[in-house]
C-alpha cells in the first residue's frame, strides 16, 4: 500500500511532523547524516577518477604505456623484465615484524580495538 500525497490525513501529517521535529531536536540521526554526507563527498571524487580513466587518459592499460615499454625493453633500464634482478634490487622490499612493539603497548595496559 502506498499512500499518495492526497491521502495523507491531518492526524498522520501531525504524527510525521512530530517525529521529525523530535529527531531534528535530539540529533538522533546526526551521525548517520554526517556519514552519508561524507560518503557522498568522497563519492564525487571517486566518480571523477573513473571518469578520467574512461575519458581523459588515452591509454588505459599499464602494459601499453610507451614509457613503461621503454623501461622494460631489451636495451632498457629494467631489461630483465618485471620481477627481474634490477627490479628486485630497486623496486621490491622486505617487511618488519613489529608485533613485539605491540606486546609492549598491551603490557602498559593500553586497550585497543583488536
Amino acid at each position, binding site marked *: 500500500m502506498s499512500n499518495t500525497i492526497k491521502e495523507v490525513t491531518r492526524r498522520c501529517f501531525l504524527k510525521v511532523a512530530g517525529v521529525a521535529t523530535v529527531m531534528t531536536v535530539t*540529533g538522533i540521526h546526526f551521525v548517520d547524516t*554526517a556519514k552519508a554526507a*561524507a560518503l557522498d563527498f568522497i563519492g564525487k571524487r571517486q566518480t571523477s577518477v573513473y571518469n578520467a*580513466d574512461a575519458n581523459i587518459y588515452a591509454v*588505459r592499460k599499464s602494459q601499453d604505456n610507451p614509457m613503461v615499454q621503454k623501461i622494460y625493453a631489451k636495451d632498457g633500464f629494467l631489461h630483465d623484465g618485471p*620481477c627481474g634482478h634490477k627490479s628486485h634490487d630497486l*623496486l621490491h*622490499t622486505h617487511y618488519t615484524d613489529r608485533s613485539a612493539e605491540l606486546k609492549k603497548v598491551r603490557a602498559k595496559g593500553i586497550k585497543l*580495538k*583488536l
Partner: protein
Amino acid sequence: MLEIEKVMSTGQLPKSADPTTYAMVQVDQDKCEACGNCHEVCPTGVIQAVGSDGKHQVVDPAACINCGQCLLNCPYGAIYEQVSFVDEILAKIKDPNTIVVSMPAPAVRYGLGEPFGMPPGTYVGGKMHAALRKLGFDLIWDNEFTADVTIMEEGTELINRIAKPDKKHPLPQFTSCCPGWVKFVETFYPELLPNVSTCKSPIGMLGPLAKTYGAQQTKTDPKKMYTVSIMPCIAKKFEGLRPEMNASGYRDTDATITTRELAYMIKKAGIDFVNLPEVQPDPILGESTGAATIFATSGGVMEAALRLAYEVLSGQKLTNPDIKAVRASEGIVTASVDVPKFGKVNVAVASGLDNAVKLCEEVKAGKSKHHFIEIMTCPGGCVNGGGQPLDPNIRVSDAGSPLLKTYKKRFGMC
C-alpha cells in the same frame, strides 16, 4: 603552530630518523571537546580518552598507523600534524645547486582543486603539473608513472605466485601500496607478511628510479637530487622515512607532503591555480595511463592489475578495460573474474581496516579462496586519504551552526 588548509601543523621536520618513535598526528588538548569521533574512526583505537575529562590522545605511536582518519573527522580541528617538510622544500627550491623533483600521487589531482573553490573531485592533473613548474620544481615527474610500473611488477608477481606457489610466497597475495595497511599488517598480523606483495608502493619505486634511471637519462648528479613525494596521505610520511628506503644509494624519498600542504604552497606563492593551463609532466618518469589514475580509489589497484593479468594469462587482448565488478565504495567486494585459458581469478577488495581484519582472519585460518586481495586503510581509498582537503561538512565551525555544537555537547551524539 601554523595553519595549512584548516589543519594545524607544527611545521617541524621529523623529530628523529626513526619514525616509529612518534605518531604523525596528535591531539591539541586545548581544542579537544572529548566527543570521541576520532576513536570511532581510528582503525586500531590507539587514539583514546585519557584522564577524567575524556580528552583524547594518541597514547602510543607503536599502535598508530598514521592514517589521519581521526584528523579528517575531528569536528573541532583539534588534531594536528607533527611532521612537515614544507619549509625545507621551499629552501631547496631556492637553492640553485639542488634539482628538486616532484612526485605527485594519483589521488592528489582529484582533491587539489577544492581549496581553490573548484567542485569536489574536479580533475586538475594538468593544472597541478603547471603549478609545480611555477613553484620552481626542476623535474615534473609523476607517481602515476610508477603506478603503472607497480602493476607490471605486482601483476607479474601474482602470476608467478599462481604458477609456483611456495611457503615463502603463498596465495592470496595482498597489495602493498597503502602505508597504513603495511604498518598495520607488520604490527597486528606479522604471520601474514609472506602474503604481502614484495613490491614497494608506487612512491617507493619512483624515488629510487628518479635517482638512478632518471638521473642517467637527464644527465643529473643524483647527489644533487631532492625528491618530493606529494601524497593524499599522512602515513606516506612514515613510509618515506623508513630506513630501508635507500635502494638508490641515497635517501629514495627526501620529503613527503600532503595535498593540503601543496595547496598551501601554491596559495603562498600567489599562483592563480584555477586559470593555469593544462601542462604535461616531463618525459622518462612522467607518462601514465588510466590504469594508474584509478589507484586513487578503492578497487583501482585490483582493476588495473586485472587489466594486465587477463592479457598475460589468456594471451588475448582485453577489449573493454572496465572491470566494474571490483569497484568498491565501501565494505568488502569479492569477484570471480573469468580469464580464458586460465579459469577464474578470485579477488577481494576492502577499504577500512575493520573490513581488512575479516579478510586477514580468513587467510590466517587457511580458509581464503582468493588469489589477490587489495587493502586500503581509508574508506573509499586514497581520494579519502588523511592528507586530502577537508570535507566542508565535518567541522562545527564550518557548519556555522551554533546549535549543532550545543546538541553535540548535550547529547554526546558524535
